[in-house]
């Protein structure tokens, strides 16, 4: 795969001033929404929009990788009551810093995408939940939203059509869990961010008990392109089963960290060696975490020929997640890094479910012991056992997200952990 060098970014194109409405419109912005609202030949009804998005197979960019159009199709038929779209801009998974780029550089692309989604699902209000720490970006979004209202692109009778929808920005206040879609709904309703038990699913009973769809910011930002250029165009970009542009966030020990828009299915080594211009200080690569801290770590030896798409990564024993790749050089203290990840999940567990509330703390405390050189080999086995007591036993996936790094880091770097452990006090043999 070498044509990535000639790839023309569509989410964040290299155009100055795209964050301004007139520039955005000058470059084709709002053509998609206009066509959806006015070209009744092409888009006879909202469901035709859903079908196109479904065909495009935009797999959710928030981590779960579920077909966005398929998710839209779960909404029950409109009954005249309120229906909501909740846009997930909470991005808090360590290693992830991509959606803020959209807020900063191309806010109207997202707003247009969300508006099309609202039309497709007969949504009455769009809530955009942005993590509270992104105050600078929330301010940018406030400007964009106000401009869109002023231009008749939000609110009543959008673009002269009969379609109306409101968009409300909502700031979080510091809680990773609110990126979990049902927890986000609770937070939007003004409560503690406790994930909800499913079923009922948000499409049946979401915000204030009404049908609701939750989509990631980047996911929705792909919608205008799909509408304008068609599902076939979208599917022609990148990996076949996980198509489209991806905002790769590359961080850690590389020479040029940052967010890069490239087709899905990029070879991991190309991203590290060419895009991010190699491991810092000429050091050797030790491992990567491919898609945010919860995705299982992959040692350097497993990265050759590996591409960044859901299926390839699953095959390699990890996940695509948010495509926020963390690169670690040969001097990285894997034990300490894992402890730090565990500390994060311990800090962020909402405390609702027993296995997560108690397990995340237990994991962190044992790992701290191991970091200090006070652990034993038995502790490592205990850590693995605890992960199996957490996985799949809770309301939301935070317990899994906390357990996977521990399970896979220990199993893939066991010798480094063993080297940190005290010799067993029980004589062997």
């Amino acid at each position: 795969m070498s044509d990535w060098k000639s790839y023309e970014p569509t989410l964040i194109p290299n155009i100055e001033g795209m964050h301004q409405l007139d520039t955005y419109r000058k470059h084709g912005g709002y053509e998609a929404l206009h066509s959806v609202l006015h070209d009744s030949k092409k888009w006879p009804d909202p469901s035709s929009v859903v079908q196109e998005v479904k065909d495009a197979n935009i797999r959710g960019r928030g981590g779960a990788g579920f077909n966005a159009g398929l998710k839209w199709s779960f909404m029950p038929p409109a009954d005249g009551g309120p229906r909501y779209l909740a846009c997930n801009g909470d991005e808090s998974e360590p290693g992830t810093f991509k959606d803020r780029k959209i807020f900063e550089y191309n806010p109207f692309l997202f707003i247009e995408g969300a508006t099309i989604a609202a039309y497709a699902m007969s949504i009455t209000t769009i809530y955009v939940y942005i993590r509270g720490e992104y105050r600078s970006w929330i301010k940018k979004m406030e400007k964009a939203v106000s401009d869109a209202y002023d231009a008749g692109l939000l609110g009543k009778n959008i673009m002269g059509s009969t379609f109306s929808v409101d968009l409300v920005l909502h700031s979080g206040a510091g809680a990773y869990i609110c990126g979990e879609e049902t927890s986000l709904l609770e937070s939007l309703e003004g409560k503690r961010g406790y994930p909800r038990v499913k079923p009922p699913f948000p499409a049946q009973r979401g915000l204030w008990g009404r049908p609701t769809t939750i989509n990631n910011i980047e996911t929705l930002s792909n919608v205008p392109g799909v509408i304008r250029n068609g599902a076939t165009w979208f599917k022609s970009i990148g990996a076949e089963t996980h198509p489209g542009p991806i905002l790769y966030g590359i961080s850690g020990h590389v020479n040029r960290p940052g967010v890069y828009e490239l087709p899905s299915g990029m070879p991991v080594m190309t991203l590290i060696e060419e895009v991010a211009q190699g491991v810092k200080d000429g050091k050797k690569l030790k491992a990567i975490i491919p898609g945010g801290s919860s995705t299982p770590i992959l040692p350097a030896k497993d990265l050759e020929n590996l591409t960044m798409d859901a299926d390839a990564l699953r095959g390699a024993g990890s996940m695509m997640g948010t495509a926020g790749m963390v690169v670690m050089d040969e001097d990285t203290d894997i034990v300490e890094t894992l402890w730090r990840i565990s500390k994060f999940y311990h800090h962020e567990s909402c405390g609702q479910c027993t296995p997560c509330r108690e397990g995340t703390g237990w994991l962190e405390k044992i790992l701290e012991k191991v970091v200090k050189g006070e652990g034993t080999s038995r502790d490592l086995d205990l850590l693995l056992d605890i992960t199996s007591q957490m996985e799949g036993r809770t309301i939301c996936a935070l317990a899994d997200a906390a357990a996977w790094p521990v399970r896979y880091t220990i199993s893939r770097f066991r010798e480094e952990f063993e080297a940190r452990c005290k010799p067993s006090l029980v004589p062997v043999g």
Partner: protein
Amino acid sequence: MAEIVIDGKSYSFEGKPKLLDFILSKDKEVPFFCYHPSMSAPANCRMCMVKVGQYVKNRDTGEYELDEHGERQIRWFPKLQTSCNMDMMDDMIVHTHETDNLVKRAHKDTLEMILINHPLDCPICDQAGECPLQIQTYKYGPEGSRFEVKKQHKPKHVQLGPRVTLDAERCINCTRCTRFTDEISQSHQLTITRRGDKNHPTTAPGTVFDDPYSMNTIDLCPVGALTSTDFRFKARVWEMNQTPGLDITNGKGVNVDLWTRDNLVLRITPRHNPHVNDYWMTDKGRDAIQLYNENRLSTPSLRLHPKDKDLVMTSWDNTLQTIQEIVESTDSKQILSLGSPYASVEENAAWAHFSQTILKQKPSYTAHVEKGAGDGFLLVDDQAPNTAGCDLLGLKKRTKAALKKAVSESQVIFSLHDDYIERGWITKEDLKGKTWIYFGTNLTQIANAATLTVPITCAAEHTASYINVDQRIQRTYPAKETKYTNRRLDLEMSEGRLDRFGTKFDHWVNEDNKIDCKPLWEIVSDLFSLWGQTITYRHGRDVLESLNQTITALDGITYQAMDDHRGVLLSTSEPQEAST
């Protein structure tokens, strides 16, 4: 009719019951903590895990798909499911811990997790002995602990309100208490604070958990995190007897359990009755322990001369003879006979019988209703437990003014229970020059001013029935002994559970605290015999049986029927005083 297979046994069901509810209703067990049948199911304790699957059917033919052995194919859910929030569906297959090792393992795992930050201080914990966590750990928990790092410390002995004390370290975050104040009492006084393993319930800073139903959270708490401030460290659960009873502080007729040791009622907890109080009771109702234990009238007492400051104790024989002398020396028109909505149906009936036969007076009574005291939940305006019973017996209801008038026009007054002075209906002055014979349980202001006080048994000492504001007749059991009863001989009294030697655990350390009092019907029987009549009411049942004959609404009403149906709703032909 849909079908479900649980642990290999087939059950049919209708509607959409929740799986845990259904399993429990079949007398099977699935352990749980956060679930409560009267509140929402947050599924947060993750204890009630089961394995769930469904038979696979061919979409076109509707036939069951079979595997190579000709057995029906089952599509299992990929993860274990919490049964508390699981809707039952047709063709569901469920494996509980009885038949599935993974489920068993899940129970053990969850308990291990719950216990790692739990202080394990059962030896000093009030909840020990009735603690779901303790019981489930014993039955399903791990053998030992693998937790060798530092526990999470949280606030201890926090006074949340006047009645409830919190030990946050024992808390397992089931949120039953916060759901109670949100969903049931709706005071919204509790919340969970912090996050993760620092979570615990609390009030908003500077506010007090003074919800009139606050103590229900103690009953709900599946561990010893919320305990009763008054009851803390008073007794171990297994030392006490648990006897069914009724809340006598209000007309609602809330069903309760009386917990006794050494003839003291140490605590009162609600007893489930879906027709009356569900699982709940008021905090006020729990204060009845003071009525049962403290300031009791014990041994009859007599004021020798009207000017004497104190009453002196006297014998039962002398008491009865004194009554006889007074009655025989007084014109019956000068006698006022008062029943009481605080006394049971049986007491009022026996009293009315005596009153009409010997005193030649139909007893009247006064209702104790405080307008606006009710809250639409378990508190009603009627402050007395048996106003409807008085009405049913045909006792004439007197207003405040009528009472005062009647008292002023009478020479001798027989009264039951009510403290008219404390209520401000009459004053001590009104008693001047009168002979007041008071039958009661406590040393009330009336008792202090009376000529003769006759101690009678309280609701914790006798079997008697009470009719609540909704016309439901319910009954009490004796929970504590009087000077004249013995719990080992009286088969009606409950005893503590068996210890491992098969003997009763409740070795009460002394036989004190027995009150020298008698059931009113017994006293009435004795009085009848003084007048040469043989009317024998040995037991509340004797009174009730006679009422079966005389009062249509009570025809066929027995204690057994009340026990079988959690009280019986009476069909009264005459419209009763509207309940509040």
